[in-house]
């Protein structure tokens, strides 16, 4: 029984945070996917916002491309906050 298509679910757990992938649901349409996602992934009020995306619409990077896609930024340490040493007196930033 090839039934309802698969949707990937992303939940924003708190205001100010990014949506995070939490899993998937089956649903006949986007509206139902939204409701199913709400019923499944936010039973303990874990979310303030939900995205659902048809799984077939997602293009994922292949692990073989890891070196091309991600390695070049490995040496760009200035992109990371820990690169900037600040005196302790400045406090948490």
């Amino acid at each position, binding site marked *: 029984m090839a039934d309802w298509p698969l949707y990937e679910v992303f939940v924003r757990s708190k205001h100010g945070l990014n949506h995070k992938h939490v*899993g998937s649901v089956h649903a006949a349409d986007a509206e139902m996917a939204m409701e199913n996602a709400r019923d499944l992934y936010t039973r303990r009020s874990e979310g303030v916002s939900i995205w659902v995306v048809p799984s077939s619409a997602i293009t994922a990077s292949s*692990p073989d491309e890891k070196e091309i896609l991600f390695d070049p930024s490995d040496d760009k340490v200035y992109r990371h906050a820990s690169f900037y040493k600040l005196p302790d007196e400045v406090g948490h930033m």
Partner: protein
Amino acid sequence: MYAQLVETGAKRVKSLEEMSPEEREFQLKIDAETKIEAKNWMPEGYRKTLIRQISQHAHSEVVGMLPEGNWVTRAPTLKRKLQLMAKIQDEAGHGLYLYSAMETLGADRDEEIDKLHEGKVKYSSIFNYPTLNWADMGTVGWLVDGAAIVNQVVLQRTSYGPYSRAMIRICKEESFHQRQGYQILLDLMREGTEEQKQMVQDSINRFWWPSLMMFGPSDDQSPNSQQSMAWKIKRKSNDELRQMFIDQTVPQLEFLGCTAPDPDLKWNEERGHYDFGEIDWQEFYDVLKGNGPCNKERIETRKNAIDGGAWVREAARAYAEKQQQKQQNAA
């Protein structure tokens, strides 16, 4: 444990030297505790073993709704009814988390469920036992969920990322299940009538041994365990987990003022563990093969639900297609 016997297809574990370069790289990743993700290369045996284990686990959660569903319509108070409903709902949810993890491996949920309904795959033997009195709702929470939690806590560190993340979620949600169960029993034992107390002891007598069987056969009878451990799909052996469970459960049993139906159960000072009697393995294999008290009813109920719901799912799909067509026409 919800997956008691998982076939790995491996007679013995290969050494690093015997492996292909890909296999070796994979095994080294596992050894270094790097999580495997859906798009990573993996040996076919690993993928198949995981699909078997995760689907067994998911089927167990779903079938596991039925013994409790048997009492949810008869829960004695509003509070107990709400607690039981929430717990059963969590179980459906956990089944869905696990199916979702399984689908990242390229398995199809509907196909795997069909296999369950055709009797081709297993689910935990425990859910083939009947729930005969209200105290069973306490015992199932305390012993059955308790045994499951012992296993699932360890599985949070399983090597496959999506499975591990599902387990972390499940463990977080499941902590209330065992407490809920134990509290039912404790209240009945402390403030209950003589009849209610007998209900509790009767329930423990029936569920004690089946709960111990949840961890699967002894290590020397588990040829698949070694491969699963090498792949870090399993993290601890059946016997280790069973002993952990008994050691933590006996003091709780004594606190209730109840006894276990095992004359050999006693503390062994030397081992620092409880000794316990021999499990009836014939019964275990019988139930697992389909000859338990409720195997037939459980599968029938699930099959009827899904088969009987075919027109519902079909209608929802047809409606979705029509709506999409309308939108396209309007655009």
